[in-house]
């Protein structure tokens, strides 16, 4: 029983991270019908920036206290958001009127570029988050010890998701984002600057991805230049699971995938952790290609 509860908490923490990254894929897909393959690498950059900025905030070779994580996270989200905006401007906007395949190739190119840039800047070896960023405190819930950091990650990712949901569903600009995802031309006829909406979507998606990057560093300690690939793939799976293009779907899909993967590796075998995730992807593509919350929509011509 104790073990199940701990695994559930672990699953929700991983799921929260997947969900945050999945939101970036699904929002961009929603408005552009494009899989932004470079999104996982923005997440990597978030993880590295988090480490670098945290270390830089200390003075004379000493590290700052744990409280510095908050301003660092805010800065990282801002910087990765900015990078997401630049990515859209440089890699995707010039190809907006070209075929969809051109944009996909550009996305793959941007991904390779970012991965190699990270490798050049921070090196090919893995980096380790300092202990001070990774509180080892354990909290007892229902007589079961649960690492504080996991609860923190669950809480922060839920908070970010709720904020995003509120923004998308209850503000003027959020409604404009949904309109642009449904019909860009009709949105433009409402006086909505669709380019601005697309930029906004990249900013938000990349910012959430950056936050997820720090969470991985804080929770597992190790980061490396290629981590964006595996996490990106998982998050993409989560987005498809929930219904690609659907924002609540990405949240649900991320949480579910985190739970399935964690429980699967705890009770079946850890060696099959990735296999379980991709089995989920294959099954959902066969049984319900539109995802759990996705709607069956006719392809627009």
């Amino acid at each position, binding site marked *: 029983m104790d073990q199940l509860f701990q695994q559930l908490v672990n699953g929700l923490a991983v799921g929260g991270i997947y969900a945050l990254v999945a939101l970036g894929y699904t929002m961009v897909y929603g408005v552009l019908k494009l899989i932004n393959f470079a999104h996982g690498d923005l997440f990597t950059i978030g993880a590295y920036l988090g480490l670098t900025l945290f270390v830089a905030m200390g003075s004379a070779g000493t590290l700052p206290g744990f409280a510095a994580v908050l301003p660092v996270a805010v800065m990282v989200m801002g910087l990765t958001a900015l990078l997401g905006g630049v990515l859209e401007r440089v890699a995707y906007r010039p190809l907006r009127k070209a075929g969809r395949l051109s944009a996909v190739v550009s996305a793959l190119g941007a991904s390779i570029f970012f991965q190699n840039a990270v490798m050049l800047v921070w090196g090919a070896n893995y980096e380790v988050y300092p202990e001070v960023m990774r509180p080892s405190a354990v909290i007892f819930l229902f007589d079961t010890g649960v690492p504080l950091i996991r609860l923190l990650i669950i809480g922060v990712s839920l908070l970010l998701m709720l904020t995003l949901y509120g923004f998308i569903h209850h503000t*003027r600009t959020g409604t404009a984002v*949904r*309109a642009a995802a*449904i019909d860009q031309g009709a949105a433009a*006829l*409402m*006086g*909505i600057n669709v380019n601005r909406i697309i930029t906004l979507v990249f900013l938000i998606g990349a910012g959430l991805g950056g936050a997820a990057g720090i969470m991985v560093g804080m929770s597992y300690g190790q980061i490396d230049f290629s981590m964006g690939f595996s996490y990106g793939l998982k998050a993409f799976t989560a987005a498809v699971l929930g219904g690609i293009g659907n924002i609540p779907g990405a949240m649900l899909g991320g949480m579910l995938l985190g739970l399935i993967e964690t429980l699967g590796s705890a009770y079946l075998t850890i060696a099959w952790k990735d296999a379980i995730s991709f089995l989920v992807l294959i099954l959902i593509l066969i049984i319900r290609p539109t995802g759990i919350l996705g709607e069956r929509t006719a392809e627009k011509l």
Partner: protein
Amino acid sequence: MFLEVDELRAGYGPVQVLHGISLHVEKGEIVTILGANGAGKTTTLLSVSGLADITGGAVRLRGKDIHTLPADEIVARGLTQAPEGRRIFGPLSVMENLRLGAFTVKDRKAVARTLEQVFELFPRLSERRSQPAGTLSGGEQQMLAIARALMARPRLLLLDEPSLGLAPLLVKAIFETVHAINESGVTVLLVEQNARAALKLARRGYILEMGRIVMEGDAAALLADPGVQQAYLGG
């Protein structure tokens, strides 16, 4: 001149649809564009709204070029459109659709006032305000498309086939509404398949064939023209 389309050439990517058309709309008028499928009626309206690729000529609103502006800035200048196929935002509620129509209006009180007027014009929409727009009937969706275009308080309203696919009684209601909208001071450029009804409503008309204007004149004269009767009014 309120709206002036001058030797306009436009299309989509490499496909040219309009081969130099000129037309104008005066303040307060209802002007209709008639023509067969594929003649370029919808492309004309989309060009004016900034959604087609313009390769030559000009579109001017109150003397100022608008063909160089992006679509959203054209809306901000008081020109809106209820496009072909309605293109309402199906998953969004009726209310959300209407609020999006007022996206360029920053004054909340003005939006509330317009909303009231629009609900007066279309009481059905008021009843269904919280319903997803996609669940409305065809006639209601058309009402929503027009209502949404009115929410920005346009001076010029473009309507693309508002009667398409509607039952005769509804068609009559829609045309009466267009008349009422015009009476309230909105200039209307109307594209229609239903040539007879459109010519009865409009003051002037243009006939478009293969991307060129082939005839223009007072609506009454076009109604009486044997060629027009033969081609567009069923003989």
